[in-house]
């Protein structure tokens, strides 16, 4: 065949493959949104779930999802930053750093249900945290940390070596150079990675079923004392999240409107995850522009 024809054929095949991916995503999104969006209402988003009757909402689950996400990020972001900075800027190439890198790779490829069961054994039973937000947040940290660390390390490495030289040649210490020169430049990548990580955490179910639990006790949104059991802020209360709620309704829901609640909750979840992804792009671009073309 003539090279021109081969080229055309190959391009055509690639277009088809790309098209299939887009169609799959679009039909999945379309189906979930089409089924779910009609059930979304202010009442649905804010009222507690009901176990036996129709008309339950997802208010508490939604709050739990965000609170758990916040806690998980509060724990994992500083750790990921520290580990990422160490690996990118300070670690010499030797057996120890090889071990750390391999550990991160393995940790990032663990199935989330395994992470969940590990969290159940260690945080829930051994540490006696029970089914709680804290157990869930720690499990999510294990799930999230390797990817975040990797993202921080990659973002820092993507900053040219000449920038480090520039800082050092001015008499800045390595630490000052990293903090004030390298991190600001790597920030768009780091933030994008964190928001994408947040999206992943937000939609996670398997790691939470055995750690944060499957029940959502009633919350008193007037009580912000984190030590009170009815307080939304209490990290030791069980907290079913949106993703876990969807799983539970579909596996053992006996509400008459289970299908509708499930569809509505799925739509909310998908919209939230989509929002995280779009936000990541937007914020990443914004910061990049701000940093480079001030």
């Amino acid at each position, binding site marked *: 065949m003539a090279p021109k024809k081969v080229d055309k054929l190959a391009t055509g095949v690639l277009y088809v493959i790309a098209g299939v991916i887009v169609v799959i995503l679009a039909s999945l999104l379309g189906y979930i949104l089409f089924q779910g969006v009609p059930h979304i209402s202010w009442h649905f988003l804010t009222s507690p779930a009901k176990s036996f009757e129709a008309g339950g909402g997802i208010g508490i689950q939604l709050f739990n999802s965000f609170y758990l996400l916040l806690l998980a990020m509060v724990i994992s972001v500083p750790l990921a930053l520290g580990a990422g900075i160490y690996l990118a800027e300070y670690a010499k190439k030797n057996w120890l750093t090889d071990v750390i890198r391999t550990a991160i790779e393995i940790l990032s490829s663990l199935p989330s249900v395994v992470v969940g069961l590990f969290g159940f054994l260690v945080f829930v039973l051994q540490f006696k945290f029970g089914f709680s937000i804290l157990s869930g947040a720690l499990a999510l940290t294990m799930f999230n940390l390797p990817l975040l660390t990797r993202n921080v390390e990659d973002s820092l490495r993507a900053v040219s070596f000449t*920038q480090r*030289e*520039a800082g050092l*040649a*001015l*008499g800045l*210490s390595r630490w000052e150079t990293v903090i004030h*020169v390298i991190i600001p*430049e790597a920030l768009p990548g780091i933030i994008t990675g964190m928001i994408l990580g947040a999206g992943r955490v937000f939609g996670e179910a398997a790691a939470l079923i055995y750690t944060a639990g499957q029940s959502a006790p009633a919350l008193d949104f007037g009580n912000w004392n984190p030590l009170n059991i009815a307080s939304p802020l209490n990290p030791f209360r069980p907290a079913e999240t949106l993703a876990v709620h969807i799983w539970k309704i579909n596996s053992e829901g006996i509400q008459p409107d289970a299908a509708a609640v499930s569809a509505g909750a799925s739509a909310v979840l998908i919209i939230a995850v989509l929002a995280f992804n779009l936000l990541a792009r937007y914020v990443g671009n914004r910061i990049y522009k701000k940093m480079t073309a*001030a």
Partner: protein
Amino acid sequence: MDNYALDDRYIKDFDRSEHEIAIETQDLRVFYGAKEAIHGTSLPFERFKITALIGASGSGKSTFLRSLNRMNDTIEGTRVTGQIMYRDIDINSANVDVYEMRKHIGMVFQRPNPFAKSIYDNITFAPRRFGEKRKAVLDELVETSLRQAALWDQVKDDLHQSGLALSGGQQQRLCIARAIAMKPDILLLDEPASALDPISTSTVEDTLMALKDQYTIIIVTHNMQQAARISDYTAFFYAGQALEYDETRKIFTRPKIKATDDYVSGHFG
């Protein structure tokens, strides 16, 4: 290319009563792992003069230059032995505060590397880190450094635009301004004009000529015309050591060593 005898050398020394030496190496050797990249090199550099380091790629001139403010420390597996005397201190010893030393011995690199910050912040960033907070002083510093680097007139109205938005030649002059804002004694330049077009190159050269009253400048260059135009002294590097070191005029007109003669007349390189 011929193989030249490495023991055939001519290294100029200075009459110390007449010439002030800013920095001087004694038997400086640089090792990358087990490989000796620079063989015992001893060179004195006169104060307020421009000294050019010339030589073919891989001759060790950049490696030598980067040792002078210990930038080679940042490369894993690199070891530098010998002495670097600066103000009667051997700055190549473990107990020297490298960061403090680098404030006195600044460096400009081959590729322009402004920070991804505004022009103003590029210059004031390091001085602010070292405690200068007064805005009037910083403003003044920005203006004088940019003037010295011959960039002020082009950027004075956009000091808050990103340094990365400048052209290559302007970026390099910004880097020079950033280095001299630290008021160093010595300015090391590693092929500062190699990535620039001829017009930018000549602007950078004029800048360096003007800076020589206040700074001791050591510049690595591939460009022999450049070395001949701007430098007072020239060291010719070959196979990891300086083979000839003399007044620039002599190096380019009556070199004492055959390798130098062949290099400056374009027989290899």
